[in-house]
């Protein structure tokens, strides 16, 4: 059974562990550390922080199992209307590196209907092997058949790791698969690596809205499953000469049964492209005012970017919720994020602070947004945006 103990003879009461604990589970009593087990998650941050080796953690989960039957890195490739989604190429790019480090094959898994053409495309993106299941029931994503098929594939071919996009489909699907096949699953990774000695996938992800990072492993279960955040990894280069082994699997009809029924697919055609796909996002906040959003749209049009918004702008009904960036909206990682009239509440920053370049325009020089902005302009965004739009038009000759 897992446990954590303070070695009282070694504890000097220095309080380093108290500061290190992300869960506030340690306090001092009689100048010694005491762990509140109701709060402790056995994360081990205190063990690393302790300079006196006074904290002992036991978290081995029983005898080591024989995991040698599991090999290869799998990438679950998402398709919509037959088109492979760009996140899959990012995963193949990252998967290639991991597979090479381990000296195993990189395999793509694709489910759909009439998807023969996908094989060549996936091969060109670096897949050594492609598992393909083609069935009318798999045309569009449904939880039941997708889960059942992926469970069967994984049980039969035993991959060492499965990577999947942290998309609505990916998160819904692999969460169920991991339970069914008793696998470890780490959500929303932003960094992956390999511990060669232990042959472990090192999965690093943000928690507490990006305020802390955690590296997570799955020591004793296979496959090691991870969902990966969109637009963090680099897409695999295309090499049209590459060939891959294609394994087309068929299953009996009942495997494709679905309890849920897809009645309709509605695409909402707005001014914007999909926010999480966009390379450039222009976002408006309270400081724009309702009419000011026309200026945001205008700049987005000139730059070919998407329009985002802060929560207060959405709550004021200036723009639909689907545009909201932040904790209760979308997390975005564009190359360029221009925040107009957004003060930068922590809930908003959580959703966009990983953007490569951030431009902030706000009339309050003390607004928190300036603390993370690459470039800041102090002033009324409704006055600056038209000038900025003009300037970009000149630069772009539009």
């Amino acid at each position, binding site marked *: 059974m897992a446990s954590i103990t303070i070695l009282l003879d070694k504890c000097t009461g220095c309080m380093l562990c108290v500061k290190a604990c992300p869960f506030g589970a340690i306090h001092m009593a009689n100048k010694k550390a005491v762990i509140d087990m109701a709060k402790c998650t056995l994360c081990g941050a205190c063990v690393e922080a302790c300079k006196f080796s006074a904290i002992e953690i036991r978290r081995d989960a029983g005898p080591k199992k024989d995991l040698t039957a599991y090999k290869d890195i799998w990438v679950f490739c998402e398709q919509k209307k037959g088109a492979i989604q760009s996140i899959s190429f990012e995963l193949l790019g990252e998967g290639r590196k991991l597979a090479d480090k381990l000296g195993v094959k990189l395999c793509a898994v694709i489910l759909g209907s009439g998807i023969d053409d996908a094989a060549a495309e996936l091969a060109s993106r670096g897949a050594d092997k492609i598992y393909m299941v083609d069935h009318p029931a798999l045309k569009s994503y449904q939880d039941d058949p997708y889960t059942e098929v992926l469970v069967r594939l994984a049980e039969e071919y035993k991959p060492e790791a499965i990577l999947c996009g942290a998309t609505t489909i990916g998160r819904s699907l692999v969460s169920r698969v991991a339970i069914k096949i008793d696998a470890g699953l780490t959500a929303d990774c932003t960094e992956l690596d390999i511990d060669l000695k232990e042959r472990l996938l090192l999965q690093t992800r943000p928690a507490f809205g990006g305020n802390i990072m955690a590296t997570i492993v799955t020591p004793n279960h296979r496959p090691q499953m991870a969902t990966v955040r969109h637009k963090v990894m680099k897409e695999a280069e295309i090499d049209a000469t590459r060939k891959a082994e294609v394994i087309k699997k068929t299953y009996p009809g009942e495997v494709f049964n679905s309890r849920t029924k897809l009645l309709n697919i509605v695409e909402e055609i707005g001014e914007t492209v999909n926010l999480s796909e966009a390379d450039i996002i222009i976002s408006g906040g309270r400081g724009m005012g309702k009419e000011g959003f026309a200026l945001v749209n205008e700049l987005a049009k000139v730059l070919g970017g998407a329009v985002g918004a802060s929560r*207060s702008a959405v*709550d*004021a009904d200036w723009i639909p919720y689907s545009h909201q960036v932040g904790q209760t909206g979308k997390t975005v990682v564009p190359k360029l994020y221009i925040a107009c009239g957004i003060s930068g509440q922590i809930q908003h920053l959580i959703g966009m602070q990983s953007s490569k370049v951030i431009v902030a325009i706000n009339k309050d020089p*003390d607004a928190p947004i300036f603390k993370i902005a690459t470039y800041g302009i102090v002033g009324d965004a409704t006055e600056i945006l038209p000038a900025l739009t003009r300037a970009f038009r000149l630069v772009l000759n539009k």
Partner: protein
Amino acid sequence: MDYLITEQQTMIRDLARKIADEKIKPVAAHYDETEEFAWPIMKILAESDLFGVYLPEQYGGLGGGILDMCLVTEELSRACGGIALGYAGTGLGTLPILLHGSEEQKKKYLPDIAAGKKLAAFCITEAEAGSDAGSIKTTARKEGDKYILNGTKQWITNAGEADIYTVIASTDKTKGVRGASAFIVEKGTKGMEFGKKEKKMGIRASATREVIFTDCEVPAENLISREGMGFIIAMKTFDCSRPGVAAQAVGIAQGALDHALEYARTRVQFDVPISSFQAIQHMLADMGTQVEAARALVYATARMVDSGAKSVAKESAMAKLFASDVAMKVTTDAVQIFGGYGYMRDYPVEKYMRDAKITQIYEGTSQIQRNVIAANMIKESIKK
């Protein structure tokens, strides 16, 4: 300061504060700008049971008193004095029924008011009867089992939005103030109309309109108490409602002070936050002390009302007089601390200053309050 309010009152205050912070603050500027009536907020207050805090449990209320109502009014006013008035104005319109209504009238009207399904309004002021409330011209003529109302009430808070109106009208002109009577008139009664919405300096989220009666037939059972009791009912109502206006003033002052403090801490001039200047510190200290003193007087008065004390006219008037003067002073100083920004409508404090002014005027001007206070003081000293 700890006013030793009950656990239930703490719950009421905290909930009102939560609604003010989360729901009213974000929209206060919007309603001030558009002068719309904040129905979405009234709905939230209704669902939260806040309309019933001062009403007896047998009518669906929570069994509290005027202090409970004051706590809610203060917290709401801290975010927006105008929106708070939709709540407080309902209290004013309800008090005549609560204080003097018959059991049937209470049973008929109070549950809907407690549930927030219906708002109320109080109609006394007329074009030529402001401070001189005795000179009202609106008449109520008895005809069989009905009264026929004629006349125009002016600057009626919640007019048009409320469903229940308590109206002071003269049933016997020859008797002057002793000829006034109070009636309950429901919205939709034939012969009752509303004038255009007034454009105001402050409390712009509150609806202020004329209520016009033209041969308006009101059932005789809607007479509150007896004929001739109208003026007494109005004065007793004001005795209980003035702590509410005072609480609104305290809330407005506190809201402006909150903004001023925050701004003083973050505004940097001469390389330091302006809160490090003694000139600002002394202003803040005075503002804080004045607000706390006003609050203490308001709560003490509300408690006195709730204790069933016989005469509270002097104390209620003192609370309103003092708190409204504090509101005007503190909001003006808040604008001063904000400097040029404070004068701009993009910043929230000028609204508090505009909203504060009315508290020195309605439900008896500060001058009338002084009259009431002095009259009572002199009366008391004669008795001794």
